[in-house]
C-alpha cells in the first residue's frame, strides 16, 4: 500500500519500498501499481477469452475455475508472507497430502469426521512447526529444509496409505466441498477462503507484524536491530503455512472424495508460480496479497480458456511458464535498467532502509536521458 506522504524526501513509511512517486499524483501511482496490473491482465484475459473461446463466457466456467484453484488460493495466502520475508516453503503440497491421508486414515478407523479434521489441521501445525524449527532455531536455509520435508512428508503420506485410497466420506461433507453458495455459481469453499483472505490482508498490510514481515525481507539485520522478533515471526509464518495447507488438504480430500498419498502432486510449484506472478519478489521485501490472488486466478483462467479451446496440457504449461518468465524477468529487467539509469543520472531520495547520502532532488533530468542516448 503506498503511503500518502507529503511530497518531500522524508523517509518512506516503514515497510513500503522506496518509490520515486512523490512527484506523481496518487491516482497515477495507483494505476502503475503491480497489483493493479495483474488484475488488469486477469480482466483482459477473461474478456478476450469470453469473446473468442466457445463456452468460456458461461457462469459455470467460473465455478469450475474457482473449484480447481481453491487449494492454490488458500496456500498462496501464507506463502506470500513467507516469500516476503525472503524465505520459501516447498513442502506445502506434501503437507496437503499428509493432512489428506491423516484425515482419511483416521476417519477410516472410525474417528468422528470432525475430530479427524481437527487432527489433520494439527498435522499441518506440526509440519509447519518442524519447518519453522529447522529454519529459525537450527538456522538452516528454508530452501534446503523444505526440499527435505517435501520428500519427508510426501514419503510418510504415501507410506501410510500405499497405493490405496480412502474414499467413503459422508455425503454431507463432500457435497459441501463440491457445492455452491445457495443458488449462486460461487463454490462454498470461497466463504472460508474470503474469511482467510481478509485476515491475511489485515495481518500483512495493516498490522505491525505485517510491517515486520516486509522489514525482514528488505533487511533482516536492520529488522533485528529495530526490535523485530525475526525468528518468532518466521516460525509463526511457517506454522500458518502448515495449517492452511492442511485445510487445503481436507478440502481437496472432500472435493475429490479420495484421500491419497499422491494428492496435490506438484502443487507447491503452482502456488509459488502464482505468488511470483502476483508481483511478490522472490528476494523478499516486496509484494501484496491482492496481486497474488489475481495471479492465482490469472493462471487458472488461462488454463481453463486453453482447455476449452482444445489445447493440450503441454501448450498450457508452455503458456503459463512463458507468462511467468516474461513477467518476472521483464519487470525486473526493466526495473534494473531504469534504476541504473537513475544512478547514472539523477539519483532519487533515499528511504530509511538504504542511505547513500546523496540528497539531490529527484528529477528525471534530461541529463540522464541524454547520457543514455549517447551510449
Amino acid at each position, binding site marked *: 500500500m503506498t503511503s500518502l506522504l507529503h511530497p518531500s524526501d522524508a523517509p518512506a513509511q516503514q515497510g513500503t519500498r522506496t518509490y520515486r512517486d512523490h512527484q506523481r499524483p496518487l491516482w497515477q501511482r495507483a494505476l502503475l501499481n503491480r497489483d493493479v496490473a*495483474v488484475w488488469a491482465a486477469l480482466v483482459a484475459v477473461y474478456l478476450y477469452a469470453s469473446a473468442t473461446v*466457445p463456452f468460456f463466457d458461461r457462469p459455470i466456467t467460473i465455478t*469450475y475455475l474457482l473449484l480447481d484453484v481453491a487449494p492454490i488460493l488458500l496456500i498462496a495466502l501464507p506463502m506470500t508472507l513467507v516469500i516476503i520475508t525472503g524465505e520459501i516453503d516447498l513442502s506445502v503440497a506434501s503437507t496437503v497430502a499428509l493432512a489428506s491421508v491423516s484425515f482419511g486414515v483416521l476417519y477410516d478407523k472410525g474417528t468422528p469426521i470432525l475430530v479427524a479434521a481437527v487432527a489433520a489441521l494439527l498435522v499441518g501445525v506440526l509440519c509447519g512447526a518442524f519447518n519453522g524449527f529447522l529454519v529459525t532455531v537450527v538456522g538452516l536455509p528454508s530452501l534446503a529444509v523444505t526440499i527435505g520435508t517435501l520428500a519427508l512428508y510426501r514419503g510418510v503420506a504415501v507410506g501410510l496409505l500405499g497405493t490405496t485410497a480412502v474414499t467413503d466420506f459422508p455425503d454431507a461433507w463432500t457435497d459441501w466441498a463440491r457445492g455452491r453458495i445457495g443458488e449462486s455459481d460461487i463454490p462454498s469453499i470461497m466463504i472460508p477462503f474470503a474469511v482467510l483472505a481478509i485476515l491475511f490482508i489485515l495481518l500483512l498490510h495493516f498490522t505491525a507484524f505485517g510491517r515486520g514481515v516486509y522489514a525482514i525481507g528488505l533487511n533482516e539485520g536492520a529488522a533485528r536491530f529495530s526490535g523485530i522478533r525475526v525468528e518468532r515471526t518466521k516460525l509463526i509464518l511457517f506454522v500458518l503455512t502448515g495449517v492452511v495447507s492442511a485445510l487445503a488438504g481436507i478440502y481437496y480430500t472432500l472435493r475429490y472424495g479420495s484421500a491419497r498419498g499422491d494428492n496435490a502432486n506438484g502443487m507447491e510449484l503452482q502456488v509459488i508460480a502464482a505468488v511470483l506472478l502476483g508481483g511478490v519478489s522472490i528476494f523478499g521485501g516486496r509484494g501484496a496479497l491482492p496481486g497474488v490472488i489475481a495471479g492465482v486466478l490469472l493462471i487458472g483462467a488461462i488454463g481453463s480458456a486453453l482447455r476449452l479451446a482444445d489445447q493440450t496440457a503441454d501448450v498450457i504449461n508452455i503458456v503459463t511458464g512463458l507468462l511467468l518468465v516474461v513477467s518476472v524477468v521483464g519487470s525486473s529487467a526493466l526495473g534494473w535498467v531504469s534504476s541504473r539509469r537513475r544512478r547514472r543520472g539523477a539519483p532519487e531520495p533515499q528511504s530509511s532502509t538504504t542511505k547513500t547520502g546523496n540528497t539531490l532532488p529527484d528529477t528525471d533530468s534530461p541529463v540522464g536521458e541524454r547520457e543514455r542516448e549517447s551510449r
Partner: protein
Amino acid sequence: MTTATTRRRGVARFVPAVAAVLGLSLVLTACGGSDDEGGSGDGGNGDLSVTFLPKNLGNPYFDASSTGGEAAVKEFEGTFKEVGPSEATPDSQVSYINTLTQQGTGAIAISANDPKAIGDALQEARDAGTKVVTFDSDTDPEYRDLFVSQADAKGIASKQVELIAKAIGDQGKIAVLSASANATNQNEWIRLMEEELKANHPNIELVETVYGDDDDQTSFDKTAALLQKHSDLKGIVSPTTVGIAAAARYLSDSQYKGKVALTGLGTPDQMREYVKNGTVGSFALWSPEDLGYLTAFASKALIEGDIEGKEGDTFEAGKLGEYTVGADGVVVLGEPLEFNKDNIDDFNF
C-alpha cells in the same frame, strides 16, 4: 511531470498483463480454436463425437489406444478428439471432464486415474447428456455406462502360465517379479496363476514373489537378487511392463541369458531387442489399439441408443465383430495377444 523514464517504468509494470493477453491470443489464433461449432450447446444426444481422455498424454500405451479409437471413429464417420493431462493425476482429469461437460461431447472414453475422485465430474457430464465409457482402468460402476476391459484376470493369468510352462518345459522353479505389494490387479493375477499352477502344472514350483515397485532400477536389482538367491531358477514371470523390461535388460547382459526364461506382460517396443537377441522367447499383452477401437464402437452404440450398458446387450465393433455386455456393464476385449520373434515387428507401441 511524467517524463519518458517514468512512463517506461509504468510500462514495465504492465508487462505481465500484456504478456498474458498476447500469449493467449497467439495460442488461440495460431492453433485456431478450430471447434467453433459452438452452437451444439448442451451435449450431444445422437452426436457421434467421441473424446478420448487417457490417464496422461505422451504415454505410448495410450497413444496406441487413441490411434485405435481414431480409426474406429473414422470408420463410423464421427468426430474424434483426444484431450488429457500431462501427469496421471485424478484432479487434472477432473478439469478436463469439466471442460468436456461444458463443450458437450457425445461420449467420453476415459481411463480413470482414480475410481472415485473423478466420479462426481463424470456424473455431471452424464447429467448433461454425455455417455461415459471407461477403458483400461475403471471407476466405480455407478459413474459410467460401460467399462471396456483389456482382458479378464483369469485370461491374463492363464496366458502367462501357459507361456512360462512352454518356455521351461513344464517343470522347474519359477519366481514372480511384480509391481508393488499392494497393487490390486497384480495380486489378483498372481493368485490366479498360483491356482492354475497347482491345478494343471504340478512340476512347476513358484518359489518367490518379489516387488520392483514399477521402478526400473528397483526391478533390475530385484532380478539380480532373485538369481543369486535361487541358483536353480528356471524362469521369471513379470506381469508388469516396467518389471519385464528391467528383468530382460539384466538377463541379456548376464550369464543367465538364454538359460533362465522370462515372460510376462510387456510392450513390443520395449521388448523388441530382447526378443531378437534371444533373451525372451515370448510375452503377452492385449493390443491397446484394439482396446481403443472397441471403446470407440461401444461409445457409438451408447450414443445411438442401440445399447444401454445392461448385461446381455450386444453391439457390433467393426472389424472386431460382435460383443456382448457382461455383468456390471463390463465388455471384455478378449484373450491377450502373444508376441514372439515371428510377429513382434507387426506391432508398434
